[in-house]
């Protein structure tokens, strides 16, 4: 806790110094720096308004909404099967994972469940999209901190996963593969063997990244002790996913919530880290990629035979009711609150995306840090603009 107190003290001093200077005769003016909407480090169009005192941030606030696409409203004029094509685009790096909770909510309302084979394949694809998402984070992390080589390795090895997703679903980025009651198609022949081979490559990639980045002294000095989120604060701000686990909260919806998926059938571990700093968040994500490859490996061995689609009517009408389903997506907790009035389309859908809550902590977290640390902290919080603005 001592480090947190130091940090609070530092931000207090910075605020006091900035206030004091306003009335001094030889006044040094604070500078307002607009980081974004067009800035190479904000993965899109996030705007951070930061008041600086020298290079120290006195006050900072994220300003979202530059990429708002109105998906919650759009779902109201779509039928249930059409919605997956929309929600695919929320977190565009791990698209398949966005479809799953919505489909599960619709299935819950209709009272049907996908056959075991479909559940297994869903889980495999879910974890593959997690790998596609987070492995890009691991490479991007290097770019944010000034190392340009890891991102090329990330793009190279992420390609294996995207190829697998393409082979199974037909879409590299937006699979649109999940259906109410199961999946659109069965897996192609030989896909499971290919997947196992690729998972081995991904594990090698994780080792390489660990050597190149995580073991680097400069990387450690840039991330350790920077942007510490204590446990209580993380819970108060509603963080989820790796950001929460890095603050020492043992919380993973894949394990904690019983959903018709296959996570409870395999052996894997939820990693937590006591530090809560940038290094912890990055390290947790690295471990998550490793765990995901383990999950996929085990699931590939145990895919049951059978149909991939349950009996569903041709025209899907969801009975009246409300359902809330959330899953542990690559970025954190992603959930859909679906209200149906017995029609072909949803009456109202509330989308809870992880990044929106994850960046809500930035005003608290950025106070008192230096400009380079803004980038480190934003990189380690790991948001995707589509996930913030929806």
């Amino acid at each position: 806790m001592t480090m947190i107190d130091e940090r609070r003290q530092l931000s207090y001093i910075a605020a006091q110094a900035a206030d004091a200077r306003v009335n001094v005769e030889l006044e040094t003016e604070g500078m307002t720096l607009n980081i974004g909407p067009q800035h190479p480090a904000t993965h899109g169009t996030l705007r951070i308004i930061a008041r600086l005192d020298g290079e120290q941030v006195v006050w900072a606030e994220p300003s979202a909404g530059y990429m708002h696409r109105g998906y919650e409203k759009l779902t109201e004029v779509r039928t249930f099967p059409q919605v997956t094509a929309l929600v695919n685009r929320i977190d565009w790096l791990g698209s398949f994972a966005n479809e799953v909770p919505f489909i599960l909510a619709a299935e819950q309302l209709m009272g049907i469940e996908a056959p075991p084979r479909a559940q297994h394949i869903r889980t495999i694809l879910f974890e593959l999209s997690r790998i596609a998402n987070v492995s890009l984070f691991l490479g991007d992390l290097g770019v944010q901190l000034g190392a340009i080589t890891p991102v090329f390795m990330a793009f190279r090895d992420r390609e294996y996963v995207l190829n697998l997703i393409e082979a199974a679903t037909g879409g590299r980025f937006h699979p649109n593969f999940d259906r109410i009651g199961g999946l659109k198609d069965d897996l192609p022949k030989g896909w499971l063997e290919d997947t196992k081979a690729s998972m081995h490559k991904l594990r090698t990639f994780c080792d390489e990244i660990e050597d190149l980045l995580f073991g680097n002294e400069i990387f450690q000095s840039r991330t350790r002790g920077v942007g510490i989120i204590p446990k209580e604060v993380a819970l108060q701000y509603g963080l989820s996913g790796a950001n929460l686990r890095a603050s020492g909260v043992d919380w993973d919806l894949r394990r904690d919530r019983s959903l018709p998926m296959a996570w409870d059938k395999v052996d894997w571990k939820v990693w937590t880290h006591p530090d809560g700093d940038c290094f912890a968040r990055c390290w947790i994500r690295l471990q998550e990629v490793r765990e995901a490859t383990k999950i996929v490996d085990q699931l590939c061995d145990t895919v049951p035979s059978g149909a991939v689609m349950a009996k569903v009517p041709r025209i899907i009408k969801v009975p009246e009711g409300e359902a809330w389903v959330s899953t542990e997506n690559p970025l954190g907790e992603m959930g859909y609150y679906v209200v149906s009035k017995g029609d072909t389309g949803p009456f109202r859908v509330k989308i809870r995306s992880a990044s929106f809550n994850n960046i809500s902590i930035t005003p608290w977290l950025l106070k008192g840090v230096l400009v380079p640390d803004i980038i480190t902290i934003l990189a380690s919080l790991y948001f995707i603009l589509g996930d913030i603005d929806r």
Partner: protein
Amino acid sequence: MSAVFAADIPYWGQSLLRALGGAVAVLLPAGTIVYVFLFKLMSFMQSRLGPMEAGPYGSMQLFAEVGKWLQKEDLYPDRADRFLFKSAPLVVLLSTFMLVVAVPFGPDAIFTNFDNGVLYVLAVSSISVLGILMAGWASANKYSLLGGLRAAGQLIAYELPMVLAVVGVVIQAGTMNMQTIVVKQNAGSIFGWDGIGNPYILTQFVGFLVFMIAVQAELTQAPFDMPIAESELVAGYMTEYSGFRFLIFFIAEFATAGVFSLLASTMFLGGWGLPWSWFNWGSLDEVHNVMNVVGPLIMVTKMMLVAFIIMWARFSYPRFREDQLQKFAWKFLIPVALGNIAVTSILKVAF
């Protein structure tokens, strides 16, 4: 070389010829070779092919890019200080040009043989700070300003370890003349064995390390690239530049990397001499004339080797934070360099 230029060419004419010769004979090939070599190298490190279209295996890439940049509009921001904004890249490039003047490429292949060439080189190398500060201030851009100020702080901080690292060489050679430093290294011997001469990297390895780290910072290459810091400050002091002014910054970056590599090879790696090829020439006058042709080739080879190390570090490391950088310079590099000077002078007296 003065024999070639007979007395009928006036002194300013000689100087002009030399300056032009320097630009054409050294900077252009150095820039091109370093650029293509390093871009290919970087690509292979990052598992991609790199430039492939312009010329065989992309060897003409620099010319293609020069052609592209020259076609672009020469933009300047509305509120920019136009004179400073436009002249800043030239100041940066000027520093590079002035550095080449003192580098010996052979017994006679040297533009100007200063008696205190080392001092001159170190002094001139810091002119680029002025250009960077000018660019940062004149751009009327907050990112540029932050980048320019970071650059100023960084370059001034790393000037010192660089000077102190070279002092060890100067003590050992007993001269500040670059040509004499080369001759002393090649004509020297290690405990009586004169096979490879006595390149100062063997005795001054601490100085060499400090020098290379300081060069890395002086060139604003990763891990010391905060002034540019593309993920934080967009492009730092270069943010507002486009067209051929950006090109000048860009060329200056690579050419300066080449020139600093030349300096490192002159002072630490034996300059234009090659191991096992110093045929007991006692002084500069006895050296065979063929070294005027072979020397530049040797220098370019050594330059590429050193530039490879610079770029290798650049492509592998993330960048420091500004305060960590200053701590590293003042609390680590400078004490180490001072210790190196002390040890060198004691040993110099002892032997």
